[in-house]
């Protein structure tokens, strides 16, 4: 060995296992341009060769809200208080959609990107991160339509009030994105080896929606189904959606305890997801 090169000045080392916990933030920062390009790619390629383009982003929440309003409010008679049922549903669905998009988009990270992951190395976390960010763009567009209807109903004379907590709305969305990302990473790691999970996720999300207070206020479930209310109360997503509606429409309630619980769960899920994701990224290509 040469004098200038002491045996320890290696730039990096490739070893069988990652250290127990290694999110190499410096490396992620080096690849920030890739992150932006992935986001750009995801956003652009959705409209390519479509006539309606970004309008497709709007059609889905609008139709779902209309359906929910007819079934849950007109037929089943769920009371949304002073807020027009359509706006109530649209708020819930817009927020919920962001979570679903994050979760489904990240949960097949390894499977969907096997071809590219099998060829080149870049910090794998870039891919799920880009999904969460590009969905934020989609969420932004969907949120604009919500604002449009909000103004429409306002001038119709509906009794609408913004809550001062609206300033914290972005934080709420970020928490939701992180929860979706954490859960998605966890599932994506398991899907690589056992495809069973990808079947589970499709209807799992649907079931979860009913437990997340998307189309009813949280107080309602406590009144009508006291025996099963805990299912909703232990669901961190229910608090996020309930709080979002509180901020946007000034209905329902904000539970500080519930939100703290949500925050703790989100952080825990995110770190567990990250841990499992890191462990998987090293050798998933052999099992995918």
């Amino acid at each position: 060995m040469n004098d200038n090169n002491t045996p320890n000045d290696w730039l990096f080392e490739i070893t069988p296992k990652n250290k127990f916990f290694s999110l190499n933030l410096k490396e992620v920062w080096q690849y920030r341009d890739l992150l932006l390009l992935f986001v750009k790619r995801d956003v652009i390629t959705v409209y390519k060769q479509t006539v309606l383009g970004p309008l497709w982003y709007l059609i889905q929440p609008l139709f779902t809200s209309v359906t929910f309003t007819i079934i849950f409010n007109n037929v089943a008679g769920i009371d949304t208080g002073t807020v027009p049922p359509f706006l109530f549903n649209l708020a819930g669905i817009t927020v919920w959609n962001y979570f679903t998009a994050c979760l489904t988009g990240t949960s097949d990270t390894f499977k969907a990107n096997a071809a590219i992951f099998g060829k080149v190395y870049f910090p794998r976390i870039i891919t799920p991160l880009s999904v969460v960010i590009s969905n934020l763009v989609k969420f932004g567009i969907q949120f604009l339509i919500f604002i449009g209807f909000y103004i429409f109903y306002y001038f119709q004379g509906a009794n609408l009030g913004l809550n001062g907590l609206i300033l914290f709305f972005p934080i709420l969305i970020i928490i939701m994105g992180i929860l979706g990302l954490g859960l998605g990473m966890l599932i994506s790691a398991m899907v690589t080896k056992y495809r069973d999970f990808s079947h589970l996720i499709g209807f799992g999300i649907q079931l979860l929606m009913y437990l997340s207070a998307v189309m009813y206020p949280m107080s309602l479930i406590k009144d009508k189904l006291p025996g099963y209310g805990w299912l909703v109360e232990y669901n961190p997503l229910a608090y996020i959606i309930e709080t979002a509606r509180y901020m946007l429409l000034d209905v329902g309630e904000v539970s500080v305890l519930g939100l703290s619980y949500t925050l703790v769960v989100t952080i825990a899920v995110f770190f567990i997801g990250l841990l499992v994701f890191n462990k998987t990224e090293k050798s998933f290509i052999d099992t995918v």
Partner: protein
Amino acid sequence: MKKDIILKAENISKQYRLGQVGTGTLSHDINRWWHKIRGKENPYLKIGETNDRSTKGSSDYVWALQDINFEVERGEVLGIIGKNGAGKSTLLKILSKVTAPTTGSIKSRGRIASLLEVGTGFNGEMTGRENIFLNGAILGMTKKEISSKLDEIIEFSGCERYIDTPVKRYSSGMTVRLAFAVAAFLEPEILVIDEVLAVGDAEFQKKAIGKMQDISREGGRTVLFVSHNMAAVKSLCTRGIVLVNGKVAMTGNVESAVNFYLSHDSESMNRKIFSSEYDKKEFTLHEISLNGIGKLSDEPLDEYQEIEINTLFTLKDESLKLHLSLVLNNDFGEPLFTFSHINNGLKLNKGTNKIKCRFPKGFLNIGTYYLSLYIIENAKSALFVEKDIMSFIIQEGERTIGSWMGKEPGFIKPKFDWLIEVN
């Protein structure tokens, strides 16, 4: 001389599980986990077998690589050669961090970028220009780096006219050109390249090899190169590693590594010794062998050598007027030409004859050839015929850098008399 080691592989091994992922996998996973929590060794690491694709093994686990050790110096171009399934690609995958080794470690003093398969991450919906940025970023470049080289990349790819067209409208050759162009302007300390020459036309191959040469010579960068094209390996690399069934069979200068690889390929044994079946009433055929002049018959034949065909033949009865006639066939079984010592007026003697025939330097093109033997009596009837009595392969020789690395059409490369006059 001081060695400047830029990359060091220590005891790299990689185990794979064969067969499908199913319920068996789950039970193995549980067993593995159970051993782990009791602090025991992974039970499946022991039972792996060496990775010989052609033989059937008893275990579900194989070692694709076993105890690989090597060092690469800065600025060196290392060729990694081996048969299909010898573990070359697995090694490159580990080097480029796509998959982790089962045991061992790789230490590096420089950024490694790989060109495992060009065009990774190309998105058909996006234009050529957008894809340059995307692909460059995937390979580890920043947006700024790409912007500064954009014009050069477009020019090198030769796809200027299509640069704002979605890549899905490109021909496959154009896609490859564009992808290689992006990769060629990467500036890592260590570049890993796998089989890029398999694609593209002659002009592009020439360009690609030239670029790789520039990268290593002028840029002083280290290149790890995997290819089945021995001409390219010989011309580009300075050193070679031969992998056989997942183990390093030899390391050395590129010439000896290529020779080692070719001579251990069972299909290229250029010597055939005949059994007693060929001991007839009138004659005995002992042996036919081929070798380059000054080389032994177990060394590979290359396209630039003067090649000698030696036949050992005993004539038992001098009164019989026998002569040997050989037919050279190509690998489609089509005869190319017939040749015999009788054409030169030479006759066989009684007793054992050592018959030598020399092909002029660089006469045969690369490829596989078959020899058929005819023993003719009285210049008219065949006493003995054996078609395809032996086969041999002419390998690529070392070519000058910048020249084409492929195969010219045709089977023989005769040197005619040419005359060029200035008017």
